[in-house]
């Protein structure tokens, strides 16, 4: 029973940054500018939020700085990738490398191995929900930082934005057939910019959640590939908000299982870490098989 609660709690804990990244990458994916800089943007936000909090002691300022700086990276990405029509993969890779290097460089200048906040702790950010806190099992929902709640609510929000609003429809049209979108008078550049910037906003939240809210510290390269897992989740969910977020949660489940069962299974519990990867390969294989089966192409077959 307690084990189950722990697993559920950790699932929510580990899913959050991935969900936010997935939601962030979705619009860009749908607008046909694949943003592989999710990782770098998340790392940037994680770094800036803790750094500003460390220097000023003001949480509001820290969050603001993290969001603004990450959206600046979003601007860099879109300016190079959309306005100047550069290769988005190369630009994304560049941002990933740069944010990692910048954070390490600043740490080096400050002669710090990592930044750990003294005046504030992870416990300060936890929010207990009064009623739910007392209900068994359901109480795992309580006791998370604010952005965790925002992340789960955002799944619904993004779903609505994507399918029920003009904005979402236009973004998808631009992604699916840009020429027809332009012929209809849609400003495709504007929608692509908006998609990327919205993405970097969500990445900023993911980064703040990862470092400031949950650990009150920053260590070099702490995102540890979560941004790429998010990209895999987007592909598996074929860019559908709820399905993709579902895959993000699946990663959270696997991580939570691996961690919690290690008490009972020892190092063998690390095997759970491979579940999502195996699942993804299978899902991607099946999806692409089904797709290719439905497309009748006149090609030579081996």
């Amino acid at each position, binding site marked *: 029973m307690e084990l189950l609660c*722990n697993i559920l709690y950790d699932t929510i804990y580990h899913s959050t940054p991935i969900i936010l990244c997935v939601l962030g990458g979705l619009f860009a994916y749908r607008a046909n500018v694949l943003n592989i800089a999710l990782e770098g943007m998340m790392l940037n936000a994680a770094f800036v939020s803790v750094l500003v909090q460390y220097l000023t002691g003001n949480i509001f300022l820290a969050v603001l700085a993290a969001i603004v700086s990450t959206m600046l990276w979003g601007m860099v990405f879109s300016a190079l990738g959309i306005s100047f029509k550069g290769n988005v993969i190369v630009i994304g890779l560049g941002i990933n490398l740069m944010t990692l290097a910048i954070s390490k460089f600043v740490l080096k200048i400050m002669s710090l191995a990592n930044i750990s906040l003294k005046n504030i*702790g*992870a416990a300060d950010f936890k929010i207990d929900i009064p009623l739910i806190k007392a209900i068994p099992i359901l109480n795992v929902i309580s006791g998370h930082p604010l952005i965790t709640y925002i992340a789960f609510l955002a799944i619904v929000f993004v779903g609505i934005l994507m399918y029920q609003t003009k904005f979402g429809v236009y973004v998808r049209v631009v992604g699916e057939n840009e020429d027809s979108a332009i012929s209809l008078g849609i400003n495709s550049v504007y929608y692509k910019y908006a998609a990327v910037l919205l993405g970097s906003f969500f990445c900023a939240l993911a980064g703040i959640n990862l470092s400031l809210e949950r650990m*009150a510290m920053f260590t070099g390269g*702490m995102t*540890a590939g979560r941004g790429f897992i998010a990209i895999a989740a987007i592909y598996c969910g074929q860019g559908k908000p709820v399905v993709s977020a579902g895959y993000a949660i699946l990663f959270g489940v696997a991580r939570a299982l691996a*961690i919690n069962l290690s008490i009972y299974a020892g190092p063998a519990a690390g095997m759970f870490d491979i579940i999502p990867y195996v699942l993804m390969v299978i899902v991607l294989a099946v999806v692409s098989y089904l797709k290719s089966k439905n497309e009748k192409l006149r090609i030579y077959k081996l």
Partner: protein
Amino acid sequence: MKKNWQKVLACILVIIMVMGNLAACSKTSDSSGNKDEKDSKMKVAIVCSSAGQNDNGYNQSAVEGAKKAAKEFGIEYKVVEPTTGVPQALESLAEDGYSIIFNLEYDFEALIKGTGGAKPIAEAYPNTTFICMNDNPNQDENGKTLHKNVISVLFDVHESSFVAGALTALVIENADVLFDQASYQFTKADAGGRSIGFIGGTNSNGITVFSFGYLEGINYIAEKLGVSYDYYAKYDAGFTDSSTGGTVAGTYYNQGANVVFAVAGSVGDGVTAKAKEVKKLAIQVDANKDDQQPGYILTSVIKNTEVPVYEIVKQAVAGKLAEMDAVQNYDLASGATSITDLAVIEKHIADSGKTKWEEIKKEVAEAQSQIASGKIKVTNAQKGEEFKAEKCPNVVIK
């Protein structure tokens, strides 16, 4: 017509570049030649591990050692953070005439065996002495030394881990008295509080050596008091993902563990952050990191690279480098490895526990002296010694 112009221009540019390169090359060789004549100062280099020279620990203390030696013996030293790989750094430093090169990174393949068909670096530069830290790669299967100009430095961290283990058990037994109940939330000893966690970065001898020493230290006290401890260990936490490290520690703390010992780089920082969150204790490694989360880090198991760096340079200045053994062991007595002086945690001991704390410190010191005198023998996984669980009947490994 235009194309010809371009061709000519390109040719000229290429020639200029080549000339520039040649000029640059000859220039550098000139200057280095001059240098050799000019100063006969001994040149020492330190190749940092990936943590970098400001890691407030392992690398930084090596640099301190070099600084100290430079002041005393007038040597010249250089600190390098390799960007294109350790082998390249070693090679170019040796080429530059550095006579002692400390390699703090765990990367010895090219140095000892040679990679890609090349000669081992140690063989290519026989006049340079290379120092390997934390491992003894300089031997063949039969334990025969391969290169004369390679010295391996091993820290007897199993002994300091033993001391940390003894301290941990003593603190858990007396947690009620020692610490203010309001600011800590220890699990009571009879409610599963006799549990301890260990988180290692990777499953290698360099990591398990800490765990086994620590285990035996816990067992030493547990046996004395006739109690039994649970021991949770994870050896695959990696070195970067501090967030996951924090959750792993969280599950241990949830299970009732009151202290978690992390030997996993930045992951350890995540563990200490978690300790602060749940108001329990953690143990750090490599450097004195007690004030990272003051009051929530019991102690740190120190690997003080300053001592061997200074010592080896001192021997070299005296011209006795060749007489040094190929494997240098630095034990508790040398000061190169130990636990911290506990000054930071001491500030957080409640008034009621002051006398008990002094007793504990005395008992820990006694364990320390018993190790030094050889009365207590601690398993050293670094040397390939195998850990026997039967030896620790009072610790249950989960």
